[in-house]
């Protein structure tokens, strides 16, 4: 332009030559681009191959089940009232178990992470004990406790809290077997919260309780959520202890896992597999939903 040096910037966003103004934003960083040799590609490919193999293995098994069932089995599933009840029992008992497990896991995990008390190492080890229980042993232990010990009989008879062959017993069984996942995950999540953040919060005016709810818990939320997912998955699919402790009474203590067992034991394999696929679908939907919700959740001021 006349009398104006090239490159001069104008408010309209064009330079003196009429070219668009350079973006004031920095170039987008698209990721590392390191130089890779063939060994790196080979190692990366091998790692991916293991992942693909595992996923393929799972997919093949699910597809094998899916191809086995037929339309009649699906129709029977959809029209069956006891399977609907069984699904409802599985869902509400497993969700209740997760809620109760979190009520225990959050304070217990925090105590294991932050407190120094006698026999802390022993307690930390024993938290994992129910995980390594043989599942049938868990059911048998509960049965013996409530039917053969004075304390168990007092709880059932005098307090009126009945568990043996009762729906509440499903929750108790699931809790015993899966709460350890929640506690362990909560403890790990709190371990990863920088203690310096809590210290600063205390100097800024927080009481220890407020510090826990405003700093520790929000920052540990993702880890706790992961623990909740693991707990729910274990509870939802539980079978062995339930058969022993609460049985599988249709309309009362039957859950999807015991339905599968009962149907296949009478030779109705197609229906059993259909119910199994239903369990997989429900589990997958819940996992996806929880992941999505967990990614959007944030603690407010």
């Amino acid at each position, binding site marked *: 332009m006349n009398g104006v040096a090239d490159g001069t910037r104008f408010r309209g966003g064009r330079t003196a030559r009429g070219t668009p103004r350079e973006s004031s934003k920095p170039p987008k960083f698209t990721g590392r681009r390191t130089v890779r040799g063939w060994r790196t590609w080979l190692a990366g490919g091998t790692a991916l191959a293991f992942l693909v193999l595992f996923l393929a293995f799972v997919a093949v098994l699910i597809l094998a089940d899916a191809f086995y069932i037929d339309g009649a089995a699906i129709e029977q599933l959809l029209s069956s009232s006891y399977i609907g009840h069984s699904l409802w029992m599985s869902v509400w008992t497993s969700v209740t178990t997760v809620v109760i497990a979190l009520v225990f896991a959050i304070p217990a995990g925090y105590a294991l992470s932050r407190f120094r008390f006698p026999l802390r190492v022993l307690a930390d080890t024993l938290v994992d004990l129910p995980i390594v229980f043989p599942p049938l042993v868990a059911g048998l232990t509960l049965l013996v406790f409530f039917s053969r010990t004075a304390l168990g009989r007092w709880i059932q008879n005098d307090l009126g809290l009945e568990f043996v062959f009762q729906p509440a017993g499903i929750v108790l069984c699931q809790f015993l077997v899966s709460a350890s996942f929640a506690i362990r995950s909560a403890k790990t999540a709190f371990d990863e919260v920088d203690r310096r953040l809590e210290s600063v*919060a205390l100097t*800024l*005016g927080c009481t220890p309780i407020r510090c826990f709810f405003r700093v520790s818990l*929000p920052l540990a939320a993702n880890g706790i959520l992961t623990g909740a997912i693991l707990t729910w998955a274990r509870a939802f699919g539980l079978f062995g202890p339930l058969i022993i402790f609460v049985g599988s009474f249709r309309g009362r203590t039957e859950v999807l896992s015991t339905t599968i067992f009962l149907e296949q034991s009478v030779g109705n394999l197609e229906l059993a597999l259909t119910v199994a696929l239903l369990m997989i679908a429900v589990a997958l939907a819940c996992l996806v939903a929880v992941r999505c919700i967990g990614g959007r959740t944030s603690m407010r*001021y």
Partner: protein
Amino acid sequence: MIRTTCLSYSVGSFELREINLHVARGEHFVLLGPPGSGKSVFLECLCGLNRIDAGRIHIDGEDVTRLEPRLRRIGYVPQDYALFPHLSVDRNIAFGLAARGMKWRAAQPRIYRIAELLDISYLLGRTTAGLSGGERQRVALARALVLEPVVLLLDEPVSALDEVTRQEVCREIRQVQRALQITTIHVSHNLEEACTLADRAGLIRDGRFLQIGTIDALLRRPCDEQVARFMRCENIYAGETAGSSADGSATRVRLGDGEVELTVPGRWQGPLKILFRPEQVRLETPCRDEAIAGENHVLLRVVRFHDTLSHVRVTLNGPLKLVAHISHESFARLQAGEGSRLLAGVDRDAIHVIEES
């Protein structure tokens, strides 16, 4: 404003031993020391994050020894700033106000005011992810200052910053501290930082104070060799007294093998150590008659030299090993290089004596 009396605290094998410190109202006190000396532990004791084993802490006349951290009216900025990653910048700043029950709407004017003071208004509403080191430091400072604390504790606030940002932030800290007249204890292991900011300073090592005083006192009159070495006084010599000066106001000291004799102020006897700073050494081209060089001059040979931003560091050897810091112009006038002979001199009053115990 803040006083500790015989403060003692131990953790593991480390111990803070009977720390007595008084920092006056509005004073900027810098706590110096090498890593692991107990500086951060001491700050945490003042905050109440560590329960002390013995002693007392008084803030503004009030005994806060057994008070919870939230009740001590202390603003604390830890070493890595500890911004809450799940909160935005303005929520971080308002965190303490919320803890004290202030509603968000009522807190906003105070947030804006402190953000304006620290020049971080443009950060309000942003997340803490992606902030630069200087920005994080300012946000952490704003979070502490918005509560109008009586005492401000800064734990190495600029150690993680680059040189330019560090100087800029140090200037800002000084301006803010002066403007608010807030009593400040500032932990650092950097001497330049201390020289820029401190009204007084204290050197702590292995859990106890070696010396407390003005920066000038620590630099030019360190109480012992440990303090001298930390304050980068490299010219430290052991010697023996060899009589008084003619007027009796000074003492002649023979160094090392006795080849060099310096005159130091004061009357001394027996073995002692003397020291003087590299900046106090004068270098001159030797004249033909060395005998008229004068008091406290010695002929040495340049071993090596190198440029820094502010001076030339010259290492000399001979009957005495000596380090001198002189200006670039002065060194250029000497036209000296490695192997050159130069006359090194130091004023009597620049020499400090540490009596051997």
